[in-house]
């Protein structure tokens, strides 16, 4: 492994504290490294610096040197080198750390500056916090407690601007709340590469708007809502649904593609209200696609499976598992297992165990779409690499189960265990499905669950713990955000019971015990446990699979290995 280049460190002095930071770090980030908060609105760590909110004003100085001799000028009072302070405050976001830089963030001048900026920002602010969705996570509210005046000196009439402007299908703009920080504009230009937003008019008439004839409708539009420091941009989906202080945050992973964007699931009393991105500088920075934010709707969907079914009639888990065990016995040798690239690593490990115990071939179904080069990759399965790592498959899957279809037609396969895969969508005809006994583990009703002999309802990603391996071979964990609906059972429990029925020995289904089994059986995951997996994931060695022709193209923080090879080749 090549060690990343060590950044050149410089020592800066912030509020009298010496801190070593990489050269060029701006003062807001440098202060953050030293545990000092510099308030800001327009600055965002993943966007360019514009410096238009003026909230991060600080005092800055450099050690004095004699202009002629370049010798340090000493201060006789302290015996140290004299500091030449700039008499006017500077903005922290656009000031880069250089050796010897001195910063003061707690002086009366800085406090006055912040209070002045706050007063101007609040002059035309509607103060409709009781009806504002941002309340509770609003930077204006936060900074008001530190630098707000508490009463208004403004006796003139406030500006009136449009309150309900739809910028796109998912984003609503309240112009009165906008503080013109331009984060959303910069995001659209720099990250989403869809330059549709801009300011029109001048002074207090300035208004955020879309260019004529354009809409903010790209698949990343809701990130503008996340980065809006005030309540100007709100999500039409989350608007007026719930106040944020009631919501519990659970770390999760976006399952829509193999990027594995880190997310936070916001829920209250078992109901999910929204999904937002979680910062991971190696995967998704602070962004995620809009399409991934709607996945929570599957939890309470109409077609959710919540009843165990045996031969089409309601049954119990015990009876259904017994029926599955009977099928395993009567059709021994004629069984196929269809795993899923949407299952977690743990489920794939148990699927592999089940297939081994049944001496059955294991299949996987690939889903390939168009990658958008940002955070949705071409491979729409979140965990194909998990199946490779656990050994469930050895080569990349195809989108059609033609080998299985041929085996069914030939009569060599009589029972198919499908772990959440719709076999009809994967190319099996209704006739072929009717010829075999299907044991279906899944969350939602489809043609396969309708044709299945045994239907075992399982959980969505929001209702269980587990791990995914993303396109970088990074193992990332997701946690249970809401309790499972009545009637559905954890995939791990069902798979472990099926594997136990097939092998005759008990199989662990609790995630801690399961991970000891996985670590023992899978060398690549040998050093890991579920508990010690870091929040930002753990990168595996991808060399054993480097030759496989993965479907992904380039996305944020990911280059396919073929592209890397071309890059390294001398011209």
């Amino acid at each position: 492994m090549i060690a990343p280049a060590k950044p050149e460190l410089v020592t800066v002095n912030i509020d009298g504290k010496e801190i070593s930071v990489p050269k060029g770090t701006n003062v807001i980030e440098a202060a953050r490294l030293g545990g000092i908060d510099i308030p800001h609105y327009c600055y965002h760590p993943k966007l360019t610096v514009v410096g238009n909110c003026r909230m991060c004003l600080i005092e800055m100085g450099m050690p004095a040197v004699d202009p002629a001799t370049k010798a340090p000028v000493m201060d006789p009072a302290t015996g140290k080198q004299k500091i030449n302070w700039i008499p006017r405050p500077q903005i922290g976001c656009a000031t880069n750390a250089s050796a010897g830089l001195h910063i003061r963030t707690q002086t009366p001048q800085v406090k006055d500056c912040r209070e002045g900026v706050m007063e101007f920002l609040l002059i035309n602010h509607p103060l409709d916090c009781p009806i504002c969705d941002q309340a509770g996570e609003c930077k204006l509210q936060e900074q008001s407690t530190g630098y707000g005046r508490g009463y208004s000196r403004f006796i003139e009439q406030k500006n009136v601007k449009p309150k309900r402007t739809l910028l796109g299908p998912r984003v609503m703009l309240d112009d009165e709340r906008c503080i013109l920080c331009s984060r959303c504009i910069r995001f659209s230009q720099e990250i989403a590469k869809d330059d549709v937003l801009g300011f029109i008019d001048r002074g207090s008439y300035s208004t955020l708007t879309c260019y004529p004839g354009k809409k903010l409708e790209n698949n990343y539009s809701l990130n503008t809502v996340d980065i809006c420091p005030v309540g100007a941009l709100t999500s039409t989906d989350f608007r007026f649904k719930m106040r944020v202080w009631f919501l519990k945050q659970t770390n999760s992973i976006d399952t829509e593609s193999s990027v594995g964007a880190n997310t936070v699931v916001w829920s209250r009393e078992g109901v999910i209200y929204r999904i937002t991105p979680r910062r991971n500088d190696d995967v998704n920075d602070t962004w995620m696609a809009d399409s991934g934010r709607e996945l929570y709707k599957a939890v309470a969907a109409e077609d959710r499976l919540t009843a165990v079914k045996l031969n089409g009639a309601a049954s119990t888990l015990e009876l259904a598992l017994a029926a599955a065990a009977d099928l395993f016995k009567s059709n021994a040798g004629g069984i196929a297992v269809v795993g899923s690239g949407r299952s977690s690593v743990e489920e794939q490990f148990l699927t592999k165990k089940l297939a081994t115990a049944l001496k059955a071939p294991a299949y996987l179904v690939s889903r390939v779409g168009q990658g958008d080069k940002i955070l949705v990759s071409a491979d729409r399965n979140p965990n194909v690499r998990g199946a490779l790592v656990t050994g469930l498959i050895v080569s990349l899957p195809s989108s059609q189960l033609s080998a299985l279809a041929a085996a069914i037609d030939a009569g060599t396969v009589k029972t198919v265990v499908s772990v959440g895969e719709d076999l009809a969508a994967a190319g099996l005809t209704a006739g072929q499905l009717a010829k075999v006994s299907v044991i279906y583990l899944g969350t939602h009703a489809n043609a396969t669950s309708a044709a299945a002999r045994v239907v075992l309802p399982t959980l969505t990603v929001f209702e269980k713990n587990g791990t995914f391996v993303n396109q970088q071979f990074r193992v990332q964990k997701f946690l249970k955000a809401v309790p499972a609906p009545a009637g559905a059972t954890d995939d791990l429990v069902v798979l472990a019971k099926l594997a136990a029925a097939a092998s005759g020995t008990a199989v662990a289904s609790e995630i801690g015990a399961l991970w000891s089994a996985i670590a023992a059986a899978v060398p690549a995951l040998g050093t890991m446990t579920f508990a010690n997996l870091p929040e930002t994931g753990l990168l595996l060695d991808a060399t054993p699979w480097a030759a496989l022709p993965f479907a992904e193209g380039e996305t944020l923080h990911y280059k396919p290995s073929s592209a890397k090879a071309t890059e390294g080749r001398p011209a």
Partner: protein
Amino acid sequence: MAIIPLERKPLSLAERTYLPAILSGLKTTFKRLLKPAETLEYPEQRPAIPPGYRGVPTLVRDPNGREKCVSCQLCEFVCPPKAIRITPGEIPADAPTAQVEKAPKAFDIDMLRCIYCGLCQEVCPEEAIFLQNQYSMSGYTRAEMVNHKDRLYELGGTLPDQHFKWDKKKAAAEHGNAH
């Protein structure tokens, strides 16, 4: 702990006749007989409720009949026994009070949980919830003891408004300083 046996003093002759005790009791009775009654014939007679009394929490309308609650859910947040449950909703853009944007779709106060602490009234930024004079809540089932939105408005009625904040907002938008 040590047990100390106490000798009960024998009763005197006067005490054994019980007459002095009866007479002193009757003295109080006859003294009260001529004075006006201290008690109330509840429920025919009702007590006068002093100002600042904390009775059943209610929702109020402003003098123009607008429901004042905007479902900010601060009372739900502050409520110590978690008696309040609000489902927020949106006011349609063509409604007369569209400038308020938000109103409760459902507002339930479970009076079996309520402890009449008045924190909801104290925290309300819209002056929409008040603990008023109503002090007697009864019902035959648990469900009856939950006050829904319509019942809360019926109990609350209309209170005078000092600010007319949202009317001013609408007036500002309609004329003058609209950009």
